[in-house]
C-alpha cells in the first residue's frame, strides 16, 4: 500500500511541475514589463489595445454563430438517427470523426480553391461571405465534439419513449423538438458549446488563411512583434480556456442522470 502511493505521488508531482512551471514562467514574464519591478503594465497595454478588443469581439461573435450553426446541424441529426434511422449511425459517426483525420489546414485550403470569387458559390467574394465560410469551417472543426456531446446527452434520456409519449399526448414535431428534446439535452448542448467556444476563440489556421481579423491571428501578430504582451495574452487565453472548462464541469453536474435504465 505504502509503496504504491509513493510512486503515484512521484508521478503526479513530476507531471504537475511540467504543467505548472511554464505557467509560472509565463506569469512571471508577463509581470516584468516595467524595469526592476513587477507590474500589470503588460495587461494594461493589452486590454487598452483597440485591436485586442476588436479581434476578441470578432472571435466571440464568430464563436456564437458557430455554436448556433453546430446545434442546428447536430441536434436534429443526432435525434433523427436515434429515433428513426439507427442504421445510418456508423456513417454519421464516421463523418463526424473525419475532421480529426483531415487537418484543418487542408479543409480551409479546399475552401479557398472551391469557393473563390469566380466559383459558382463565391463565398470569398465578399467579407460577409468569408465570415460565413469561417463560421461553417469552425462548425466542421467542432463537429466531433458537438456530435459526441449531444449524442451522449440523447443516450441518457431514451428519446424514443419520450417522443412516443409526446405523440400520444398530441404534440407535433416542432413541439417535440423544442419543448421535449432540446430542454433534456440542453446541458449536453451547452457542454459542447463551451468546448466549441474554447476551440474557436484562439483558432489561428482558418482565420489567418481566410484573412479574417480574428483573435488567433492577432495573437500571432503580437507574438512576433512584442516582448511582454504575448505572455500576458497567453495567461489571459489560459484563464479563458479554464473558464470554459469549469463551466462544462459545473454543467455536467446538472446533466440528467439516466432514469430508465437499470444500470
Amino acid at each position, binding site marked *: 500500500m505504502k509503496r504504491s502511493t509513493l510512486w503515484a505521488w512521484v508521478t503526479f508531482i513530476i507531471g504537475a511541475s511540467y504543467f505548472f512551471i511554464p505557467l509560472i514562467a509565463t506569469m512571471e514574464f508577463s509581470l516584468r514589463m516595467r524595469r526592476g519591478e513587477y507590474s500589470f503594465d503588460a495587461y494594461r497595454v493589452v486590454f487598452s489595445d483597440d485591436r485586442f478588443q476588436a479581434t476578441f469581439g470578432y472571435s466571440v461573435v464568430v464563436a456564437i454563430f458557430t455554436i448556433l450553426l453546430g446545434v442546428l446541424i447536430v441536434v436534429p441529426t443526432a435525434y433523427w438517427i436515434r429515433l428513426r434511422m439507427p442504421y445510418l449511425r456508423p456513417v454519421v459517426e464516421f463523418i463526424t470523426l473525419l475532421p480529426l483525420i483531415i487537418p484543418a489546414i487542408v479543409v480551409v485550403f479546399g475552401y479557398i480553391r472551391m469557393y473563390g470569387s469566380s466559383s459558382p458559390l463565391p463565398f470569398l467574394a465578399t467579407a460577409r461571405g468569408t465570415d460565413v465560410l469561417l463560421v461553417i469551417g469552425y462548425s*466542421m472543426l467542432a463537429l466531433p465534439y458537438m456530435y459526441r456531446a449531444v449524442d451522449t446527452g440523447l443516450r441518457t434520456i431514451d428519446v424514443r419513449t419520450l417522443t412516443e409519449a409526446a405523440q400520444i399526448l398530441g404534440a407535433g414535431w416542432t413541439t417535440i423538438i423544442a419543448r421535449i428534446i432540446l430542454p433534456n439535452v440542453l446541458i449536453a448542448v451547452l457542454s459542447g458549446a463551451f468546448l466549441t467556444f474554447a476551440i474557436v476563440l484562439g483558432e489561428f489556421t482558418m482565420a489567418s488563411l481566410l484573412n479574417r481579423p480574428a483573435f488567433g491571428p492577432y495573437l500571432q501578430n503580437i507574438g512576433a512583434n512584442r516582448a511582454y504582451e504575448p505572455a500576458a495574452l497567453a495567461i489571459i487565453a489560459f484563464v479563458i480556456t479554464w473558464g470554459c472548462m469549469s463551466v462544462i464541469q459545473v454543467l455536467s453536474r446538472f446533466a440528467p442522470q439516466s432514469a430508465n435504465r437499470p444500470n
Partner: protein
Amino acid sequence: MGGSSAAHLPKVEPMSQAIHSPAAEAEQAPRMKPRGARLPLQWLGVAPFFIFALMFLILPTMYLVVGAFQNNAGEYTLENIYELFQPSILAAYWISIRISLASAVVGALAGFALALAIVRGGLPGWVRSTTMTFSGVASNFAGVPLAFAFLATLGRLGLVTVILKEVLGFNIYSTGFNILSFWGLTLTYLYFQIPLMVVIITPAIDGLKKEWGEAAATLGATGMQYWRMVAIPVLWPSFLGTVILLFANAFGAIATAYALTGSSLNIVPILLYAQIRGDVLHNPHLGYALAFGMIVVTGLANIFYIWFRVRSERWLK
C-alpha cells in the same frame, strides 16, 4: 485554445464503452424497420447534415485530392506526386512524422502513467478531480499562447533557462537544446498531448474492474501477471487508438509551431501554410499534392489502427 485541440474525444472509446455499457450496444439495434414508402421523408431529417458534410468537408477535400493528380492544364498526371519526393519536401514530411510520433508516443506513455497514478495510485480524491479539470483545460491550450508560454519558460531568456544558468551554472543551450528544434517542439506539443491522453484513457482505466484483479489474485496470479495477461491486453486497443489520435492531432497542428519557430522549422503544415499564402513551391498543384500527402499520412495511421483492432480484438463487441 487553438485548432489542434481535441479533448472529450470519441474515436478511442469503443473499448471503454464495451466494458461500461452493454446496454448501449443493445439499444443501437434498430427496433423499427425502415419503411420503403416513407424513405424520402425520413431522409429529410438528416439531409442538412449530409449536405453540409458534403459541401464543406468532403468535396473541398476531394477537390484537393483530384487536383493533386492534375497539372495546370487540367490533364491527369502523377507528376505532382513524384515531385513530393524531392528532398526538401520529403524532409518536411519526415520531421513532421517524427515530431508527431515522438509527441504521441511520449505523450501517451506519460499520460498513461499520470492517469494510472490518479486512478489506481491511492491518492486523495482532490488529486484526481483537479488533474481531470486541468487536463481538460491543457488539452485545449494549444496554438499561439502555448508557444508564448514555452518561450517564456525554455527560450533563451526563459525563466527555467535563466534559473538553471544562474543558480546551477548550467546552460541548457550549450548542450545543443533549442526550443525551436525537434525536441523543443516535441516538449511543447506534450503540453496538450499528455492531458489529452489523460482525458481519454482515464475512463478506460476506470473500466478495468476491480474484480478482475481480485479474480486473478485468487487464481494465484501476481500483480505483474495480472497486468501482463489481463489489464494490458484490455487497455491496449484504447491506448493504441489514443496514440493514433495524438499523432493526427500533432501532425495537423500548425499554430503552435508557427508561433514558436516562425518558418524556421520546416514541417509540412507550415510548408503548406506558406504555399497557400504565397505559392512558394511555384506550382499550385504541388500544393494540392502536399495536402493530399497529409491526408494519406493521417489516413494510413487510422487504417492501421482499424486493421489492428479487427485483427486482434475479436473479444470486442
